[in-house]
């Protein structure tokens, strides 16, 4: 008996060790230990307690009020029964069972862009958080105290940071933002213990290189194939943003999907979603990793619904293109080249008298996560069919934005794409302007997302039918997560500055 107790205590002790490499490779049901949950970026959970049959009984378990007017844009992290959520300058540790606050960390006032914070990451018991003024902060997960604080980039030059760092082995991988100045984009790997740089990958040449682009920011968390030992990362648009004259050619490696060696940062292959972009269409949307048949052959694939309106399926080992198609209105390309990359139409570059462009600058989708459901083979994405007008003239110069654009019309549609053909199996209207919510699927055949008018939705994956909804009083600008604690499945969503946890009634 004593031996058994010792073993149990030992096991519980081990459980409270924060994250481990094994946990990140195979997240247990009672955790969501990284931005996407696992490394694949599918935002799919194997949990099945909440089903299409019983979801109508789902109700509020708890809500957590940040007390901020800033909309939550983070994907919560869950480790050892504690949720970690963020807003710019703020990290909260929240009890995942009850929703009460354990600690709150507030970063000192700073002049960086407070545009969003997409969450923290965890290595052992250490939390990694990025700030509006481009710092990476290491916090103690037990009490939110600062261990160290390093500059990732120079915020005085115009860089800022928003992303949830990515942990692979003993690497903390961090990216940067900065579209309002001509700055080069890069990705860095940092030592989790010391904050020292391990490697740096530059997506564009240094500012000032003749005829070369800047930009290619790295502001969204990537995905990882542990078997192939490849890290996948999307890069942002080139700068100057709306005029391409000063940066002739494709502007590599902007608007690209990159495969990198996470040990060295060396690039293995690249695929450019938007060669010579002039519409601000970052290709940072989640590179989703799927192992399945493609037209009868087993494939290791990477799929992306890109902001520019194209859906790409690639062989993720070689970078070979398997499918390129659109998933809504697009009018800016003349076709697709032999590598599967869209060919931009010069007549659709911003002009002094305006050009009508589909999609608008926000894109046909944006950074919130899509989800891949393995049972149905459906890629579920929050789409934004839209049009905008784009202007640029010599007087706008060639620095930063260098032009102007205005959205004229848009709406939100949830789309279920058959990855083998790119065709829609079904669509579900989400309302005017656009929803912008992330998507979660579960093995029971459910989708959780939000509409354009503040409702949280549970839909049936097979046909997109609404099975449950609740008005949350604000738009969902984050991606949902789910976990199971003490035998109860929770689905966590946000609206405005409030976090909601939904569950079936307690028995």
């Amino acid at each position, binding site marked *: 008996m004593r031996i058994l107790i010792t073993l149990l205590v030992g096991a519980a002790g081990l459980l409270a060790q924060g994250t481990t490499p094994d946990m990140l490779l195979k997240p247990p049901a009672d955790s969501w230990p990284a931005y996407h949950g696992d490394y694949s970026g599918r935002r799919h959970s194997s949990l099945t307690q909440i089903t299409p049959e019983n979801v109508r009984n789902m109700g509020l378990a708890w809500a957590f009020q940040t007390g901020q*007017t800033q*909309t939550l844009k983070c994907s919560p992290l869950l480790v050892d029964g504690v949720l970690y959520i963020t807003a710019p300058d703020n990290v909260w540790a929240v009890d995942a069972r009850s929703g009460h606050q354990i600690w709150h960390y507030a970063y000192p006032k*700073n*002049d*960086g*862009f*407070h*545009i969003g914070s997409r969450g923290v990451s965890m290595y052992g018991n250490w939390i990694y958080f990025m700030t*509006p003024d481009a710092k990476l902060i290491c916090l103690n997960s037990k009490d939110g105290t600062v261990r160290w604080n390093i500059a990732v980039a120079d915020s005085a030059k115009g860089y800022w940071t928003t992303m949830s760092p990515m942990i692979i082995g003993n690497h903390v991988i961090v990216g940067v933002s900065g*579209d*309002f100045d001509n700055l080069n984009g890069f990705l860095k790997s940092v030592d989790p213990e010391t904050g020292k740089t391990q490697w740096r990958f530059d997506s564009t040449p240094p500012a000032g290189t003749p005829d070369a682009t800047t930009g290619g920011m790295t502001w969204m968390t990537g995905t990882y194939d542990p078997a192939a030992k490849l890290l996948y990362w999307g890069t942002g648009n080139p700068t100057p943003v709306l005029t391409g004259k000063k940066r002739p050619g494709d502007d590599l490696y902007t608007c690209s999907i990159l495969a990198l060696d996470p040990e060295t940062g060396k690039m293995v292959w690249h695929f450019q979603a938007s060669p010579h972009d002039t519409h*601000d269409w970052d290709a940072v949307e989640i590179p989703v990793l799927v192992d399945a048949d493609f037209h009868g052959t087993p494939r290791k694939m990477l799929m992306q619904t890109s902001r520019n309106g194209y859906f790409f399926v690639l062989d993720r080992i070689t970078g070979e293109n398997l499918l390129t198609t659109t998933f809504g*209105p697009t009018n800016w390309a003349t076709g697709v080249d032999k590598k599967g990359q869209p060919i931009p139409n010069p*007549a659709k570059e911003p002009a*002094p*008298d*305006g*050009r*009508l462009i*589909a999609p608008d*600058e*926000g894109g046909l989708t944006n950074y919130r996560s899509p989800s891949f459901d393995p049972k149905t083979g459906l890629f579920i994405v929050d789409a934004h069919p839209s*049009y905008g*007008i784009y*202007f640029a*003239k010599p*007087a*706008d*110069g060639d620095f*930063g*934005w*260098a*032009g*102007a654009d*205005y*959205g*004229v*019309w848009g709406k939100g549609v949830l789309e279920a794409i058959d990855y083998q053909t790119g065709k829609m199996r079904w669509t579900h*209207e989400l*309302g*005017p*302007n656009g929803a912008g919510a992330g998507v979660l699927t579960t093995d029971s055949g459910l989708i959780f997302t939000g*509409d*354009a*008018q503040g*409702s949280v939705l549970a839909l049936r994956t097979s046909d997109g039918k*609404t099975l449950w*909804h609740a008005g949350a009083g604000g738009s969902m600008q984050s991606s949902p997560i789910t976990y199971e604690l003490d035998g109860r499945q929770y689905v966590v969503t946000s609206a405005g500055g409030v976090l909601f946890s939904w569950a079936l009634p307690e028995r």
Partner: protein
Amino acid sequence: MVSFLCRTLPIVLALPCLGRAQTVEAGRSQFQQQCAFCHGKDSAGGEDGPDLTRSKLVAEDVKGDKIGPVVRNGRANTGMPRFNVSDQELASLVAFIHTQKTLAESQNGKRRGVETADLRTGSVEKGKQYFNGTGNCAACHSPTGDLAGVAKRNDGLKLMERLMYPRGAKSKMTVTLPSGESVTGETAYQDEFTVALKDASGRYRSWDASKVKATVDAPAEAHVELLAKYTDDDIHNLMAYLLTLDKENK
């Protein structure tokens, strides 16, 4: 007296004692943090947000009387969020925005933004043909009726935006209740679950969408169908034509 209070009661009164330069600087800092992503670092336009140095609302603003309500309430249909700012913070923001406007107006060239003159590249004649022909605009609009003076009421960019899609256009909703009774009014709200209208008396009435039958007559939605059909020339020709409609009906 003021300076004495500033020195002796720094916590309570420090902010109201700020000079104009300091107020503008405080506004700049706040603008960088909360506003610059959408409106640009210099407030002359960034991602999504308009150029505030040429905004009509900013031009008409006196000490925040127009800017304040927009900052504090947001604008749901354009994506402008609401911000919880103190009176002092708002005053700083407003001071910064007005300073930027003055600065922008004093510069030649190096300006973003869209001049009406930029938008006159099309053919008036072809625009008129499109209006009466392919575009079928004449089915709903008349140059001597609803569109008389449209170019006077809207500057070039606003006109172009409204030509493509008249945001906020009213539509009519008819709701048939289970009893067979039918109610008609201006559409007030519609999603998958709830429909609502403002009836003839101005009263807001809403229903569970699954319990009633609602039909919406929204003629402005015809603009959406045209978005997929326009060439850029069609738009510039239409603009050239609409810009000639600058006289109001007497």
